[in-house]
Every structure is written in C-alpha cells, then in structure tokens.
C-alpha cells in the first residue's frame, strides 16, 4: 500500500518535472499546493501526518534569509498537513548531524555548505527532485552538478552559490590614480604596492582559520595562474610550475601590498578590517557592503565590487555551494514529504524570494534565473549577475566532488599553502607541505 503510493508519488514528481520544462511555475504550483484545487487529491493523502525535521546552520550572515524559509514552510506545511521543525545550530553542527545519522533521529533534511560527498553514505537519492528542478531551470550550471551529483545520482540539491567578489575602496584606488579596478594580477600588485605605501594595504584571506573565505579567496589566485588541485581522472595536479608561480606571486603580494595579518584572517577578520578602514581590498560576498550601508556609510560610499582580475590562465571566480540533502534513514511518508517539500520550495517561483532577499549574497545555480527579477537593484551589487556563471567551486577540475577534495577544503590545504609560502618565502617548501597534507588526507578519504 505504502509502496504503491510512494511509486505513484515518484512518478508524479517525475511527470511534474517533465511537464515543467514547458509549463514552468504553473505546474509546480499545482504540485506544491494540491489541496488548493479539487483535482489535487493524491498528493496530500500521502503527505498528511508526515514530519520533516530540518537541521542546518542559521543564515546569520544575512538574517533576512531565514524568515523566507520559515514563511514558505509554514504555508506549505499547513496546506499539506506536514509538520516541519527547524533546528538551526552554529556551533557543533557536525556533531548534531552525526548524531542524526547514527541514531536515525533528529534530522531528515540537512543544509550544509561543505561538500555533500563527505556525507555520501548517509544521503538519500534525490535524483528525481534535482532532475525536475534542473529541467525547470534550464539545466544546472557545471558547479551545481559537480557539487551535488556523485557521478551516478544526485545526493543533494543545490540551494545556490556564494560568490566572492573583489571588495575594494574605489575612493582610495582613485587617489592612487586608478579610475578602474585593475584588470589583471600584475596591475593589481602595482596598485597594491602604491596603496600599501599610502597606508591602505590589501587583505587577501589565506591560511587555515577561515572556513568560508578561506575556501574561496585562495582559489581565485591559484586558478588564475593555472594551478589546479586535481586532474580530471582524480590524480593530484597541484605539483606544477603554475602553482609555484601563484605562490611566488602571493609572496610578493603579501610583502608589497598585503596586511601582515591576512594570513591569519578568520571569516570575520577581513570584514572588520575593511569596514574599519584598515584595508582597501578583500575578496568577500556582499556581507561587507550590506552592513556598511547600515553602520559605516562612509565605507559603503567609498567602496565598490569588481570581478576578480585575470591571470596568465584567465579569469576565475570562486564559489561555495550550500545544499539541502535528505538523510537516508528517512523513510515512508516522511521521505516523500521531504522530497516534495524541497521540490516545491526550490521551484523558481518560491526560491526567487530567497535569492531576492539575499541581494546577491546567495545566487542561483540555474541559468533560467538570469531573466528572473531576483538581481540586486543596488548598482554596486550589479556584479552579481556577471559572477554567477563565472564562479567555480574548489576541486572543479574533477568530474564530481570527491571525498578527498572535500577533506582538502575542510582542512583548508590550499589557503594554508599560500600562507606558508608568505611566511617562509619559499614556494617549493610550501607546495611540498601541501602535498604532504594531501597525502595525509588520503589516509582519511
């Protein structure tokens, strides 16, 4: 009985997804709130009485986002007779997730930004949901597939991507003679040397203290010089003259242009330094600019955003991708409800509100959003639209995110390598250290 219902539900979802290619949000709305119309009878019967326990971090960077999630959940839960409980934890979230995985209690849906590959054994197959959403939105960008598909199935659904913009003090750059943000890394170094001499150093987050910035900022530099962590076959590609060139560059950058503390920044340090007028450049999402508009109007006035500069290998943006996944101890009606809930909330019509509330903080991973009214109206954040197709996640040269790649991000191996180079002045030694770190992590992968 239950089994047949689940099958029919799955078929329904698939059908909805296929139809959605043409019909867009209308079909989805029917799927989302079948109780509303007289025709939608099969959906709510299955879901009614189900419970979804949701576990993730709070969107403390931008508190406006949580209410969007909550508001939708409340409506959706009422319409479908499903109870949705939210638990948001900022400290020890990992311990809480492991508890849920081991005991099968406490969480059905989890929200994380670490690579889902790390939880691969514990995540349910959400291919039907992801494929339906992909079809609706014009096919996931490579970053989304890379992050959430393990090569054979979708183990998570991408919620969006954070992009690291160049945050810079336009006013100070002007004083130093730059009307435009430098287009390549060589010019950037020249500008930084001048600005540091004028008392406005750059602050590029490197090192192994920043879990967010530290997994984006270093890659922008590494990739621009042609360095890569992996070959597509999964072997390590970090040991290259391109990596050494990037390290070489950062040694000069740190010495001539950088804030000495940039190699010890945690996630908040660059924000504070920038908003307190200590640094003139850093890589960050919009969480410097938005608070500045509120609390430090002079900084907000003087700053702007830019795409990262070009290097010998081209221009690269870096992103991290938060996702929602379903723990595989979730079964029966709860599983159906969890899938239906993600499917419905992630529909363009609903998720747009989420993106819009973020004002560029979190961007879509589906191309169809390009024409949706989700983009920030503030001209200083207009860059978001340019960045959303440019940015790549750590490890991107692989076909799919691997556990090793994910562990390298957790341990911030690449950022640590840059920091070590700046400290010792010896790129080769720093690279060898990173290779040793990677071979250590292979023990765990």
């Amino acid at each position, binding site marked *: 009985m239950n089994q047949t219902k689940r099958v029919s539900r799955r078929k329904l979802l698939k059908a909805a997804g296929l139809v959605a290619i043409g019909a867009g949000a209308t079909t989805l709305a029917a799927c989302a709130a079948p109780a509303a119309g007289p025709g939608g009878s099969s959906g709510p019967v299955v879901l009614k009485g189900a419970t979804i326990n949701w576990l993730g971090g709070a969107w403390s960077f931008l508190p406006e986002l949580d209410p969007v999630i909550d508001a939708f959940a409340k409506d959706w839960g009422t319409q479908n007779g499903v109870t949705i409980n939210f638990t948001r934890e900022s400290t020890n979230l990992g*311990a809480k997730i492991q508890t849920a995985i081991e005991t099968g209690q406490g969480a059905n849906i989890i929200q994380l930004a670490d690579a889902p590959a790390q*939880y691969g*054994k*514990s995540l349910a197959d959400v291919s039907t949901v992801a494929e339906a959403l992909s079809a609706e939105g014009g096919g996931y960008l490579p970053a989304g597939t890379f992050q959430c598909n393990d090569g054979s199935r979708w183990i998570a659904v991408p919620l969006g991507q954070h992009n690291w913009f160049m945050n810079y003090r336009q006013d100070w750059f002007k004083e130093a003679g730059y009307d435009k943000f430098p287009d390549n890394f060589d010019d950037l170094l020249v500008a930084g040397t001048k600005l540091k001499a004028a008392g406005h150093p750059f602050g590029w987050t490197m090192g*192994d203290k920043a879990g967010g910035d530290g997994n984006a900022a270093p890659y922008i530099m590494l990739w621009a010089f042609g360095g890569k962590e992996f070959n597509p076959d999964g072997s390590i590609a970090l040991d290259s003259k391109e990596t050494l060139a990037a390290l070489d560059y950062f040694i000069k950058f740190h010495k001539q242009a950088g804030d000495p503390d940039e190699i010890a*920044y945690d996630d908040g340090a660059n924000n504070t*330094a920038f908003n307190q007028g200590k640094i003139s450049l850093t890589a960050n999402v919009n969480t410097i600019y938005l608070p500045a508009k509120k609390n430090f109007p002079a900084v907000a006035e003087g700053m702007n955003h830019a795409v990262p500069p070009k290097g010998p290998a081209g221009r690269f943006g870096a992103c991290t991708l938060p996702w929602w996944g379903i723990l*595989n101890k979730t079964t029966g009606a709860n599983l159906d409800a969890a899938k239906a809930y993600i499917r419905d909330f992630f529909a363009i019509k609903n998720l747009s509100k989420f993106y819009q509330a973020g004002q560029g903080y979190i961007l879509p991973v589906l191309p169809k959003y390009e024409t949706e009214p989700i983009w920030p109206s503030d001209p200083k954040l207009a860059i978001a639209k340019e960045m959303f197709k440019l940015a790549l996640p750590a490890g991107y040269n692989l076909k799919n995110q691997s556990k090793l790649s994910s*562990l390298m991000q957790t341990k911030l191996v690449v950022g640590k390598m840059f920091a*070590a180079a700046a400290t010792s002045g010896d790129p080769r030694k720093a690279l060898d250290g990173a290779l040793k770190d990677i071979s250590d992590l292979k023990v765990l992968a």
Partner: protein
Amino acid sequence: MASPSSQNRTTGAFVSRLFYRESTLGPILLSPGFIFLIVMMAYPFVYAVYLSFTDKESGGPANFTGLENFQKLFSYGPYGRTVINSIVYTVFALALKFLGGLGLASILNRPFVGQRYVKALMLLPWIMPTVFSTMIWQWILAPGFSVANIILVEKLHIFSENLPFLRDERFAMASLIGINIWRGLPFFGITFLAAIQGVSVEILEAAKIDGASPWVAFWRVTFPIIQPIVMVVVLISTIGTIGDFDLPFLLTRGGPNDATSLFSLLSYQLTFGSGRIGLGAAVTMTMFPLLTALIVASLIMVRRRQQND
C-alpha cells in the same frame, strides 16, 4: 512461631541488618552510582574501545579491522604533531601553573588591604564559562584589532611590531598555554594557599629557630606537608589539560598548520568533521597511556622530592 507480627519483626530486622553490616551497606550505597556508571559509562566506554578497532564511518557499518586504525594514525601527519603538541601544552601549562600557583599562594599568604575581595575576584578566570572567556581572549588577540598589540606596541612601545599571537605557530601555542594558565592559576593559587595556611605555626617557628631561610623552610618543611593537596590539584589539572577541547576548538581550530591541534580536537575533527568514527576513537585510545604516564611521572616526581629532602 510464624505469627504475622514476628514475621514483620524478622523482615524488619533483616532489612536493618542489611543497612547495618558494612559488607552489605557498602554495596547498597554504592549501587546507584555503580549501576548508573555501568549503563552510561562502562558500556559506552567498552563500545567506544571496540569502535577504535573498527573501520566505522558515519552512516556505515563497523567492521573489525584490528590495529589498522592505529597504523593509519601513525602515518597521518597531523597525528604526530598532535601528540607532540599535547605533551608540550600539558607539560608547560602544568609546570607554570604549579610554580605560579605556589607563587600566588605565597603572595596571598601575606596580609594586605582588601585581601578577602582580591581572593574572591581572583577566582573569576577559573569559574567563568570557558566558552565566554575564550571569546574575550579571541577579542584580545584577534588579528587586526588586538587590544594586546595596541597596548604593547602602540601605547607602551614595548615591541616595535605587532606580535603574531594566532598567526605564528609558536605564538599560537604560547597563547593557548598562556590562556590555560590564566584559567587554571587561580585554582592552583587558592588551594595551595589554603594548604599552606593549614600548616601549623609551631612547625614553621621551629624551622625559623633552626636558622632555615624562608626558601629552605618552604621546601623542607611546608612543601612536604602540603604535598598531598598539591598532588591532587596537579592530578585534576593534568586530566583537564591533556583533554582540553574548548580552548583550541573555539580559539584556533588547531591551526595554524596543526600547531595547536590537541588530542580531543583531533578526535573531534575526525569523528564529526570527517565522519571517521573508528579513527576518532583510536586517537583517544592513544591518549590514555600518555595520560597514565604523565600522572605516574608527576606522582613520582613529587614523592622523590619528598624523599630527597
């Protein structure tokens, strides 16, 4: 003979005998704690020991793999650093808390204005929740806006450039040790003080009459008397220090470059960060011999000192 009342009396007598005889009252009083610890600690403990010999990953089954986890650990770079860090951290923090505690006790042993309030205030670092005191230290040492640097460099000009408190590997470890000392010193000082004040005045007077200098009198007369208390405090602190988790977890996350990774943190990161539950348990397993060695060593050192004198 078996009238109801005498039956009652016999039962009553039996019960009161149970509660009178030491051979039965002992186990009765011990049983709640014992049962609790069997269910909530001994069983989990044995289970965790078992896990350390398995390839248990989060969400997966536990297959017995013998000593494989330990072999893996010994070839895992951060593990070696963690062992060394933990030893350095524990030895330095303990030695300095011990000496500092004796010093603090001798300062407090002298009467001065406001002594009572000073004693109460002094305990603050020890009693404040570590989570919050660590946040304050983070704010004192934070890169960029370190008030410690601003005072030492910009205001007092003691140093010519900012100290890399959390940036440099050695400074980070030194900062961690310093905060551990800060947190533990009051406890050492106050308990040592109470112990010193418990030493009878006559004995000290006798030593003085014999012409012993205060230094000699302390080590030859006072210290042997307070030594049991010193041992207990050192023991408690050794266990707490080698297993310290909150401080590196909240302040440095084990960095930079694993320079402040300690046993509990590594175990936590492997278990919850990487989902390697078996391996995380194995890390803790290897902490026990070291902990035992440190405890035995500190006991022997204190005993030997006493015998030599």
